[in-house]
């Protein structure tokens, strides 16, 4: 009696069609979700790529500007320009007899001229090895699933 009721329920034409429709809808929904996720990841990758391209253009621009600034500073501090300014301010080069040497206790002149350089160069690093560039959607879904399931590991 129980089996016949169950069989009657599932064999009902309406129920059969609903199951088919339900399966199709489920497949469409899953496909849509997957597509949306893929689009979101792709859009992020494209956006990052564009930002990277723009950043590189900006770097080039800054290089040109930096070169120009340095050039202008060098032009303004040229030896003949500085000498002219010093003369205008009333300075002149000393003669040997005009120089006085005073001993400073504890001071010792270094043997070499020290050239200052930055030992630990701070370089602006742009990470181009982003996962979005080479991670497939399946990998991404797997990673997300792992992230979700991680708290339950070991239970």
């Amino acid at each position: 009696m129980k089996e016949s009721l169950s069989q009657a329920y599932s064999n009902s034409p309406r129920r059969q069609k609903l199951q088919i429709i339900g399966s199709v809808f489920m497949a469409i929904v899953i496909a849509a979700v997957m597509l949306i996720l893929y689009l979101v990841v792709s859009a992020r990758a494209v956006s990052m790529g564009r930002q990277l391209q723009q950043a590189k253009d900006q770097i080039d621009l800054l290089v040109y500007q930096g070169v120009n600034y340095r050039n202008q500073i060098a032009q303004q501090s040229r030896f003949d320009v500085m000498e002219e300014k010093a003369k205008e301010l009333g300075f002149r080069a000393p003669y040997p007899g005009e120089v006085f040497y005073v001993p400073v206790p504890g001071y010792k002149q270094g043997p070499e001229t020290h050239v200052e350089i930055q030992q630990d160069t701070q370089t602006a690093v742009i990470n181009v090895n982003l996962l979005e560039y080479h991670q497939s959607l399946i990998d991404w879904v797997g990673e997300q699933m792992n992230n979700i399931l991680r708290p339950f590991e070991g239970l």
Partner: protein
Amino acid sequence: MNEKNTYNWRFITMAVLFSLFGLAIIAQMVRIQLTVNGGDLPSSSLLGQWETAASRRGLILDRNGHLLAGNQTVYAVDVNFSDFSQPGEIEEVKMLADLAIEVFGINNQYLLDFLQREPRPLTKNITVERFASQEDLLKYLALVEDYYAGIPRELVDGESTEEFVISLEEKVEVIDCSHLIRVSCTPHLIRSYPEKKLASNIIGFVMRDTKQGQLGIEEKYDSTLFGNDRTLWALWDPHKADQAPDPDNGANIVLTIDSVFQADVENILDKTIKKTGAVAGTVIVMNPQNGEILAMASSPRADINQYWSEEYLDIINNHENVFNYAIRSYEPGSVVKVLTMAAALDAGVVEPNTEFIDEGQIEIGGVTIKNWNEKAWGPQNMTSCLQNSLNVCLAWVATELESERFYNYFQDFGFGQMTGIELSGESPGLVKSYWSPDYTRSELGTNAFGQGIEITPIQMVKAISAIANNGEMVAPRIIHSIVDDGYRYTPPKTVVGHPITAETARTLTDMLQESLQNESSLALVPGYSLAGKTGTAEIYVPGQGYKSTATNTSFVGWGPVDDPQFLVYVWISKPSASIWGSEIAAPVFKKVVEKLVIHLGIPPDAVRVALEE
């Protein structure tokens, strides 16, 4: 049954709707691929573009970080001469060409012919200027925009009446021409020398077209300084943005020279050449203890920003190695007597008090050698031989040494070999081998006082460093450090030999100090103990022999003698005011040392000793 049909219709309707939706998507994809413009999608112009990373050539700095060679942004200016047909457009193109000729001063005949002829369709982009400066480009753009805005120009005899001045900000900002349809400007970097002529003989220059270093440091260290402008096909695809080229900047080079002191020395040299009517000259200042060149002035010099100028043609083409006289060989004359005496003292064939009767002439190898005044000086010792610069005495000293030992010493002093200084175009000089077939014994006598051999000033500086530095000969160097990507390489001091003993060096230094004081030389600087020697060499003229009216005057000196901090070599070529080294080169030494002691903070001997105590 009705209910079943109703369901069927609903299912069919749903299926049709979904199918239509799917078909619409597929149709859209097909449409995009098959549309007329769709064929352009895979075309290279839409996939990417050639991109060049802005790589800069390494800087050249003095020892205090003052910029001697840097970079500067210039622009390649292109005008688009294609895609026009209407009369107005033809007029527009002609105006762009005329303005380019006026502003950029185009004088290339081929380009002028092209720009001045009637514009022809199908002509593509033309580069009207490859190295437009910030000022010129802004002026050009301003005139172009005035033309588009319909603002008339005021011209007098075809020349603009307006003075174009740009602000400091405008000199620095990178110019963007993208708002103009027919004009484009692409920035790129070229070499710039803010100090113009200062130390130009050391630096060399970079060819604009080939970007290759020529002469000096620029040539010698071309591959180190070179900033590799990496040009790659950069894809528009943002997924491949990481493939865009990164800049590859050249290494920076720090020189041992001090630009302020270099300027002082150049100033002294230039004034001397002008005052004495000389044609050229050089002054080298080196620290004999470590070989660092503190200044290396040479005259004439060129403004290396304008290396193509006719004014500098001979210097830039380096005819007869004139770009830097410090590394050019010449017959130095009596300054070589110092080294002849060093060899003889070291070999033990003479002592400071060895007596020599000067009879005014000596015959060696069939050639009679006379003194500079062609007189006999009578009884002399070795110190007075040097003090009076007696050719006869030094020729005799050389014969006491004999050829083999004499030339072996000269070889040990580095004559006939390049010093290895980091400058392109160094001459090795010329010293004959005593076993060569064309060698005659008379050359032993003439070589002893600096005639018949060719030596560069930098070789002399290196050789004399052995005397100034207690027998230890150091290699001269002009590179202080090379700095690349945060790492620094500093070449070490290089001792290249001990041609004489420390005792010989001290003895000779004492002799030269004494002779300089006895001579009341114009080289003496009050308060400082100095050793040195003048040199006057007649110049050989082919077909006429040695002419006493044209001389090379030289002076070599160092101090303080008990702790030498500087070694100065002076060469003034063909002065007309006087032919003597003691009157032309010695005062230059004095002026240089007066500047140097202040610059290096070297107190007079009495003060220094008191301070040390």
